[in-house]
């Protein structure tokens, strides 16, 4: 081939480049599909059957019965409320804190390295470990939080629903704000500094510069960060499992799915929950991409 005419050489080259590209991508693509596409298909199959591993003899096709059971249960809707509540509150707090930290890191007079170091500590810690640490800190017997001023010594944080949520939200915010801050910082550094200078000359206050320049120009970066964090927060599992295991009505939909599938071995019902969670995630992604106009293809994936 090396002695062929120029055009033939080019098209051979193109074809061999395509082949090489596909060969290089194939293993990764197969590995990614193996544990997502196939299992979600299998989950749909399981979800229309009665499969309870504790009663292996019973079973068979039951149509949408599992879905009806889930959707008509009080527990599912309580857990949906909990998950949405936790997601909205955590992601909102993270957006504000993350933006503040990003602004600090961007315009730091000094100490930029220290802040970056600080935000990476939560990232490096296992979520379960962080959850244990906060749980021990708020525990009425061993914790130090109740010894702090302004907090009652008798406060039983994990004895009530919303006080449990407060601790769960705090642990989640602590763990994931760094990621939000770093994503926002990456968007912040792309804004042309001259815009601020011009606005200052025109007499714009710091707040006006933030709301009229920073926010609009950062909208794409903010939406991408929000999309990723919303989906991540929606599958909250580790922190709740460690702190309350769902007690005091603090269960999330992921905990519900886990309990049905792994604790109760009810694969049919559990798979219906799994499929419903999957549909929720698709709906959230759809909302961000189609309704809010999040341009993911220009965001995280890098064109």
């Amino acid at each position, binding site marked *: 081939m090396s002695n062929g005419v120029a055009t033939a050489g080019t098209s051979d080259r193109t074809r061999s480049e*395509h082949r090489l*590209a596909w060969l*290089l*991508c194939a*293993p*990764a693509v197969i*590995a*990614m599909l193996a544990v*997502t596409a196939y299992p*979600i298909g299998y*989950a749909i199959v*399981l979800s229309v059957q009665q499969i309870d591993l504790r009663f292996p003899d019973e079973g068979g096709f039951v149509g949408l019965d599992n879905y009806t059971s889930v959707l008509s249960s009080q527990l599912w809707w309580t857990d949906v409320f909990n998950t949405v509540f936790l997601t909205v509150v955590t992601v909102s707090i993270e957006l504000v804190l993350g933006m503040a930290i990003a602004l600090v890191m961007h315009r730091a*007079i*000094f*100490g930029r390295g*220290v802040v970056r*170091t*600080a*935000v*990476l*500590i*939560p*990232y*490096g*810690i*296992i*979520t*379960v*470990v962080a959850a244990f*640490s*906060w749980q021990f*800190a708020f525990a009425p*017997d*061993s*914790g*130090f939080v109740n010894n702090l001023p302004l907090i009652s010594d008798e406060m039983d944080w994990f004895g009530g629903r919303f006080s449990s949520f407060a601790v769960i939200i705090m642990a989640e915010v602590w763990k994931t704000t760094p*990621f939000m801050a*770093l*994503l926002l910082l*990456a*968007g912040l550094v*792309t804004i042309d500094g001259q815009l601020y200078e011009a606005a200052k000359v025109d007499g714009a206050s710091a707040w006006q510069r933030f709301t009229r320049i920073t926010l609009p120009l950062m909208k794409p970066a903010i939406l*991408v960060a929000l*999309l*990723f964090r919303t*989906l991540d927060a*929606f599958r909250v599992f580790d922190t709740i499992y460690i702190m309350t295991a769902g007690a005091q009505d603090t269960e999330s939909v*992921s905990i519900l*799915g*886990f309990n049905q*599938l792994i604790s109760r071995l009810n*694969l049919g019902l559990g*798979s219906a929950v*799994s499929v419903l*969670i999957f549909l929720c995630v698709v709906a959230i*992604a759809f909302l961000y991409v189609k309704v809010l106009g999040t341009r*993911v293809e*220009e965001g995280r*994936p*890098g064109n």
Partner: protein
Amino acid sequence: MERGGREYALWSIGIAVVLIFALIPVLWLISISLKPPEAITDGRFIPSEVSFDNYKSLFEGGVEDSPFIKPLINSILIALTTTVISIVLASFAAYAIARLEFPGKRVILAGALAIAMFPPISTIGPLFDMWRALGIYDTYLGLIIPYLTFSLPLAIYALTAFFREIPWELEQAAQVDGATPFQAFRKVIVPLAAPGVFTAAILVFIFAWNDFLFAISLTSSDASRTVPAALAFFTGESSFTEPTGSIAAAAVVVTVPIIVFVLFFQRRIVSGLTAGAVKG
């Protein structure tokens, strides 16, 4: 800009608050882990006396009887294996995406993005059932496969971003000198890409190291249970004592090395985490 003493003071306070808040859970765990059993419930942030009993009890009894040694070995081996395989596969794919023009590129990127958003809980039931049928339930392989799937998007995006920074003229020069595309990849690009590959490896390792959901769903014994899952099953010395001290000590053992590592490579990790977050 006015950068007076007051602004410096405010700035310092802000930085101090961020730093303290970030460090509290770590310091608190170290504090509990150093308390002797009778002082665990004293609620003091700084231990009044220091004891290493919690650490000793973790390693007592060797691999057979210690509740911690086997899970620690499992965690290290599973995370390392995942990292190696994931980085090899992702490097191939990222090279193709960054470097070659081919139909299907956008589909692969979009697919990887979709998997980054995929809820792992939705795969737990099918995997539990499939792994038992295939005989890989409660094995290293049973955890490595899902870790591979969910770490690949992260690795592909980070590596693609790094690979785009590489001076590709060198590769063309190698091809002009008679190297095949694959040789050019292996001999010229791989050494140049090593720092980016290393960063992606850290991200994948931390992902696998951190996982809890797969670890408690797809294991049933110390044969393959990793540290996060094992912590949830820790028991106290007797049925009346809480395992607080041992959990704290185990948590410190698995946390401090990672934090030191993360802080040492912080610049790389920041660039890896935000890879492709901005167009360009």
